[in-house]
């Protein structure tokens, strides 16, 4: 069924279809409407779940982890400061191998305070052991939630997932979204049946134990193996998703990459703008392509390399910055493959990225003066 809705609504619809048993949430702009939609679904009896209105994001993720520990499917959502407040427990959730799925409305981190979009919040949690999937539009937000449960709950993965949607740009704009039937979702996503750990008086287990140097490192090693193995699980789940719903996904999306001389690499909603610019430039005969990274964690290095290796130059666009070294996606790509790339920081704190900026990036990539330079796009002094 096609409906014109926001990404927050699409995300909430996906959660409803996934049938979580417990939903602890705390409001924060621009995530709040996800929590509100879920509250109304529960109030109307459309979603049979325990909805817990906790007193902080720290408690939201803590309650989610406690609930997941009993062996049920859970969901929570947050943004920015809320995600930062969760930081400690994000590591605990991954370490306890809890397949929690969370929606994150990407927003800038304070200070100065900004409620607007960039991707610094989730990028800053890149080492937490959570998988991160970036949606370009509302349809992907919905589809990625359903797939995230399958991937996280896979016995070979057992790591939590974050589905990232750009704040306001996606969360508060509407577009047509195909909402699948419950029947199809039930076919794709069976109930969660944990075996690795669960709280049950019939089978007493101790979860969250204290490990000494003999054990801690091996537990972390296992998480890395699971994260790397998630790449294959994602491919498998993508395929099964296509079989049921007809929409095809991969860890990355290649747009006009085949013969491209310059390839832009980006994540999230900005990919829509880039695609429109590429369409215009292609009409003028310019060979430009886009590589959209959907799965930021696990990091699909082979997929990225295979897509960009034949291009003359690539440009990596980051809505985040690791101070002193530049955009995180740019630096990770540079670290993992031998490619000729320039890095661009843009769109921080909701700074608009119009098509002209994309054209400017392409020009600067074509003739770089210094590939080590952190290129800022849209800084006022620059004009």
């Amino acid at each position, binding site marked *: 069924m096609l409906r014109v809705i926001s990404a927050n609504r699409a995300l909430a619809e996906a959660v409803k279809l996934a049938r979580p048993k417990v939903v602890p949430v705390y409001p924060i702009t621009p995530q709040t409407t996800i929590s509100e939609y879920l509250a109304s679904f529960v109030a109307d009896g459309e979603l049979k779940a325990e909805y817990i209105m906790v007193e902080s994001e720290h408690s939201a993720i803590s309650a989610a982890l406690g609930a997941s520990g009993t062996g049920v499917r859970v969901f929570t959502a947050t943004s920015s400061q809320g995600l930062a407040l969760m930081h400690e427990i994000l590591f605990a959730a991954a370490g*306890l*191998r809890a397949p929690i799925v969370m929606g994150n409305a990407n927003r800038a981190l304070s200070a100065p305070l900004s409620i607007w979009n960039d991707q610094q919040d989730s990028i800053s949690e890149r080492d937490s052991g959570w998988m991160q999937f970036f949606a370009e539009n509302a349809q992907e937000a919905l589809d990625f939630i359903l797939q995230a449960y399958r991937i996280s709950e896979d016995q070979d993965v057992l790591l939590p997932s974050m589905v990232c949607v750009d704040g306001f740009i996606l969360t508060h704009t509407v577009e047509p979204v195909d909402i699948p039937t419950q029947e199809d979702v039930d076919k794709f996503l069976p109930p969660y049946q944990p075996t*690795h*750990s669960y709280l049950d008086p019939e089978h*007493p*287990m101790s979860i969250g*134990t204290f490990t000494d140097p003999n054990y*801690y490192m*091996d*537990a972390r090693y296992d998480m890395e193996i699971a994260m790397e193995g998630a790449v294959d699980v994602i491919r498998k789940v993508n395929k099964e998703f296509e079989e049921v719903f007809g929409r095809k996904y991969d860890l990355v999306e290649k747009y006009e990459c085949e013969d491209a001389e310059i390839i832009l690499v980006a994540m999230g909603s900005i990919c829509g703008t880039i695609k429109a610019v590429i369409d215009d430039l292609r009409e003028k005969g310019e060979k430009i392509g886009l590589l959209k990274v959907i799965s930021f964690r696990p990091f699909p290095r082979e997929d990225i390399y295979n897509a960009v290796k034949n291009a003359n130059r690539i440009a990596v666009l980051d809505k985040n910055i690791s101070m002193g070294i530049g955009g995180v996606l740019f630096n990770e790509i540079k670290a993992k493959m031998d490619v000729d790339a320039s890095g661009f920081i843009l769109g921080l704190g909701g700074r608009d990225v119009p098509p002209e900026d994309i054209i400017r990036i392409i020009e600067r990539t074509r003739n770089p003066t210094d590939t080590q330079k952190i290129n800022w796009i849209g800084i006022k002094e620059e004009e």
Partner: protein
Amino acid sequence: MTSIGATVKEPGSSKHNKTGSWRTFKPILDKEKCIDCENCFLFCPEGCINKEYDIDYDYCKGCGICAEECPVKAIKMERE
């Protein structure tokens, strides 16, 4: 090899750790004097005294609470 999430699936498995080796003083109960008050059973931090007042020396750390709390001084602490 560490279990997934370092979860422990053997309840009460700390029993494999015999803390009796920590002990310097050993409680000896004179059952003749015992008045069945349950104090030693209740107050033992290890839970290693049962309702028959048998002391499990595999675990007794020799803290001396049982001797101290015995109202008829039926438990004596003796150096190992």
